């Protein structure tokens, strides 16, 4: 039994906390740094994580220790808790304002695209028209989409991109005008109907592999399939089934 667990069970919370922190401090920092870039942010989040874990005589830690059986490794549980606390900290501190901070380092055109698409939630066509009419920019729609694509790649990369994704950041760009023919909600309704024909594990695999861009072997672990190859097979079969369902819709070419 770990020494900090033994102290926790004896009710010696201060001693347990010291031992716990001594052992897991570096892992906590590594998990925070996975999401946060700025030194001050990292230190502030660390303070928040410590405060939350130590609250009510280490209630969170005790709740894990007192579980009759542990479904996950403690280190993974800790990374999960730190991730939740980190995301909450960013969300409470600056939410959407954080998105503006990200855009500040972009070149002027991409910053404007970021504002229109990601902050103001304008469609691609609306954003393009706005840039042409109000901002007086002379560029083709194809050039505009290339810039959208480049902007997305810049803001969604690295640690900054990670926290941006956690806060419901930018959608990936679409490549052609046809995609604007249906509203976002119509597109999602069609997809929901198509996803509805899949089993829960297939659906989760499709969303994790396609939307969340998880590696196939990590998806296999989550859904309980033997390996990455099984994920490829299932996902591409599922997409084929969805394609059949969507054969009358504009989305079929992408699936």
């Amino acid at each position, binding site marked *: 039994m770990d020494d900090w667990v033994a102290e926790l069970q004896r009710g010696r919370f201060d001693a347990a906390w010291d031992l716990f922190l001594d052992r897991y401090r570096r892992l906590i920092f590594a998990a925070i*740094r996975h999401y946060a870039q700025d030194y001050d942010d990292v230190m502030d989040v660390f303070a928040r994580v410590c405060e939350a874990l130590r609250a009510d005589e280490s209630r969170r830690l005790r709740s894990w220790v007192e579980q009759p059986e542990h479904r996950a490794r403690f*280190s*993974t549980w800790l*990374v*999960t808790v730190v991730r939740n606390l980190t995301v909450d900290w960013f969300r409470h501190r600056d939410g959407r304002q954080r998105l503006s901070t990200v855009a500040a380092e972009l070149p002027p055109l991409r910053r404007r695209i970021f504002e229109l698409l990601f902050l103001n939630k304008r469609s691609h066509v609306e954003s393009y028209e706005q840039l042409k009419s109000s901002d007086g920019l002379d560029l083709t729609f194809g050039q505009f989409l290339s810039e959208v694509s480049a902007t997305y790649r810049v803001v969604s990369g690295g640690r900054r991109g990670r926290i941006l994704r956690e806060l419901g950041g930018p959608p990936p760009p679409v490549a052609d005008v046809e*995609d604007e023919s249906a509203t*976002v909600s119509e597109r999602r309704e069609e997809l929901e109907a198509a996803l509805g024909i899949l089993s829960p594990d297939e659906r989760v695999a499709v969303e994790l592999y396609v939307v969340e861009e998880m*590696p196939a072997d990590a998806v296999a672990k989550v859904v*309980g399939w033997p390996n990455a190859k099984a994920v490829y097979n299932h996902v591409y079969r599922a997409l084929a089934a969805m394609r059949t369902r969507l054969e009358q819709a504009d989305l079929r070419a992408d699936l």
Partner: protein
Amino acid sequence: MSDPQPPQPLDRLRSHFHTGETPVPSPDCLDADTVAALADGTLDAARRAHALGHVATCALCRRAVASVAEALADGPITHEVEIIEGRRRRLRGQLLKVVTPLAAAAALVLLLLPRHDNHPLVSTLRGPLKADTDAPAPIGPRATAARPDRFVWTAVAHAQRYRLRLYDAEGGVLWTDETSDTAAALPKSVKLSPRSRYFWKVEAQTESGRWSGSELVEFGVETSP
């Protein structure tokens, strides 16, 4: 215009999935332990099926699982987890150092005590040990090997399967494998260092279901010139 990269095919599909809506948590959302177990792949089948039923329709929980899985694959986090898990293995190794002499002493006492093989309970529940029961003998690697990527041992008559275990110098199990063959290839995921010593043993399971184990063999990896 600079940097005109067209979106990848999956980017286009992703854009259809993305609604820009902010998902709202529900009472059914998974707790941290379940999210962690899903990302770790350690949830049992029944619980996993139940959890996936929710994850299939909850963007928040899906994001959480994906986020934790991504974090677990991040180098610095992996490194820290390995250090923590390694420390636990070392503690186990230290425990083995204490327990092993005690176990040896206990075995010696048992050997010196008078035998009661004819006890009615013993003779009913356990068949007498065969005098010719033999154990597999490790052939290689032994001492120092240039590329210890294959473990070979002698066959045992009527053995149904063999179980091989590879240990580090501190008694932590690095790899275990079961096979009906008398050889096993070391998977590429198990990296052996020239600076460390390793131990391995193999056990054979006979028709009666009993396991008979080999001696523990020590070996090292040759340093490349």
